[in-house]
């Protein structure tokens, strides 16, 4: 635009020397642009590994889904040494993951919530593998309180319903440990504004604990929050709570531990005085103490809830995340799969549920308890390629 204007004014007014200078600048600018382009191409080439000896793999698998498991799957990708396959996982969200595996555009999906009956029937022949357990931590910002604040499910529901609005409310103060005095000050409720598996677990817990919550709000990845402000993503929930005195929020335990946020203890259903702090151990034991029976991979996980596990010292707000594979890779994907390719996919996931679990603790994920590893291994063994069993290696 500006050069056009310069030309325009050049015809009506005697040429000023600035116009001449501007024209002579074109040469150097082109040179600079060319240099920048070359640098960009070199950077891309380096990143893509064109310049280094390329690790060639026979098969590459794509997965999509839950953002919660993304750091873990990413670590697996980097540490899985196999000449036959590589894995690319995209943390696009559980909803999108379920859609993509249903449409068969990916080799596997991952979801923070089990498939509903409708979702399961839409993707016929789908298998669910419980993988990686998580807890939801209650974080808060009370600068003057030194001890750990205690919560019960009933109190949390009333806070999120907006019926308890002050920290020194008798219902909240009466459950605190001796010596912990909550200050007077309004509670700022913070929730996840984006659809999230964490919200699904947390609202499921509140529904289980409070009849009013269950009737008016219910549970889901996004709900109609009666009170508070929304923040997009775990990081925004954390920063909102950290910068707002008197705020309360909820994030994945993995996120709270990695970022050193203050979190509260939550009452275990087995005893009125058993307030449990969320840790990898207290979340893991909640899954190990599950009182019901887990179904197999082809079964219905929709009604499986490990909330409120009754063993002493079990953290009550816990959940499982799921990986989704088709039982028969031949019928699901047709000619794009071969027996060898199916075998490579099964080998990768078999590695993930065994060796892969050793990377969990360092990333603050709860390693899969032995009872679930056994279920996953059995489900994996049931996978087929055009009706033939796939050898698990």
């Amino acid at each position: 635009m500006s050069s056009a204007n310069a030309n325009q004014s050049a015809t009506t007014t005697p040429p000023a020397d600035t116009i001449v200078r501007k024209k002579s600048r074109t040469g150097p600018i082109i040179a600079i642009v060319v240099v920048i382009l070359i640098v960009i191409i070199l950077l891309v080439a380096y990143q893509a590994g064109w310049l280094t000896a390329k690790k060639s793999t026979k098969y590459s698998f794509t997965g999509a889904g839950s953002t919660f498991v993304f750091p873990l799957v990413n670590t697996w990708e980097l540490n899985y040494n196999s000449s036959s396959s590589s894995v690319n996982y995209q943390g696009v969200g559980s909803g999108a993951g379920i859609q993509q595996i249903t449409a068969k555009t990916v080799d596997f999906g991952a979801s923070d919530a089990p498939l509903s009956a409708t979702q399961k029937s839409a993707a016929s022949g789908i298998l669910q593998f419980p993988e990686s357990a998580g807890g939801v931590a209650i974080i808060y910002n009370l600068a003057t309180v030194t001890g750990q604040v205690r919560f019960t499910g009933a109190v949390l529901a009333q806070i999120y319903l907006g019926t308890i609005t002050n920290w020194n409310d008798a219902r909240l103060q009466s459950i605190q440990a001796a010596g912990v005095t909550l200050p007077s000050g309004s509670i700022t409720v913070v929730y996840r504004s984006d659809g999230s598996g964490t919200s699904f677990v947390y609202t499921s817990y509140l529904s289980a604990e409070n009849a009013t919550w269950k009737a008016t709000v219910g549970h889901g990845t996004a709900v109609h929050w009666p009170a508070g402000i929304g923040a997009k993503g775990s990081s925004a929930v954390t920063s909102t709570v950290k910068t707002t005195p008197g705020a309360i929020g909820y994030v994945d335990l993995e996120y709270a531990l990695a970022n050193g946020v203050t979190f509260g203890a939550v009452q275990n259903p087995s005893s009125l005085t058993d307030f449990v702090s969320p840790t990898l151990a207290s979340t893991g034991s909640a899954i190990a103490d599950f009182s019901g029976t887990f179904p197999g991979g082809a079964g219905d996980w929709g009604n499986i809830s490990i909330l409120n596990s009754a063993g002493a010292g079990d953290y009550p707000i816990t959940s499982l995340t799921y990986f989704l594979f088709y039982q028969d890779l031949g019928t699901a994907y047709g000619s794009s799969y071969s027996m060898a390719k199916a075998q490579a996919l099964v080998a990768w996931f078999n590695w993930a549920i065994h060796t892969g679990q050793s990377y969990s603790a360092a990333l603050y994920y709860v390693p899969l308890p032995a009872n679930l590893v056994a279920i996953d291994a059995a489900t994996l063994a049931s996978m087929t390629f055009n009706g033939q069993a796939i050898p698990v290696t």
Partner: protein
Amino acid sequence: MFTGASPSLPRFGLRFLFGVVWDPVHGIFGVAPEILGTLVTSGIALLISVPLSIGAAIFLSEHAPAWLRDPVGYVIELLAAVPSVVFGFWGLAVLVPLMQGSVDPWLQSAFGWSPLLGGPNGGGRNILTASVVLAVMVTPTISAVTRESLAAVPRDQREAALSLGATRWEATRLAVLRYARTGIFGGIILGLGRALGETMAVTMTIGNKNAFSGSLISPGQTMSSLIANEFTEATGKLYVSALVEIGLVLLLVTLLVNIVARLLVWRVVRGGAVAGGA
């Protein structure tokens, strides 16, 4: 988009536009608070940014010394190219603490009696904060276009006004601004379009509450930020199609606002030409 929204379109009909409850769990979808949120944030953003950006453009093209003109002009054009997430982060890191610590409490104590500025504040994340971020975002766009239109005014126009005895300001107002107004309005509409559709920066600063309380310092939601918030984890046909329908509504609202703005411009320009006479 019609195809994507087909499950929810017949189901909700006009209730989709006027409903105030967005409840995915129970399958109730109404976007009135989000439509209001979008219009209000964009409106306030324009109220703040239009005088600011046109003032800046007039100063730069008419009054600033030559050594200041080009560098500042380049900086403004650069700002117009900064991605919105950067503006959002600036809002989160700089503006939110400022609103939370001083502006909101002051507004509340001074104007808390009026419903416009009363009510609970969202810890610095509210409609006003998002509007200010939007204003900062669209200012470079508007002022860059305005500057170009002012630069396109022939020098004769200014010289004629000055030679008739007009002061510098009178020459700018009567000869230059009037000549360039079509371009300036074009810039404002461009800025409005950017404000209406902005997603990232708004999501980061608006507080993301699916309700419109009427107070500017309460958290709210816009159509685009609601889509950005919930699309990734939306499960179920109706839920996804309701989100797609928001996109459709946003498109229609943007179209409508643009048509109204164009009509206004057309009227002003035509009316001005008659009044201007010469």
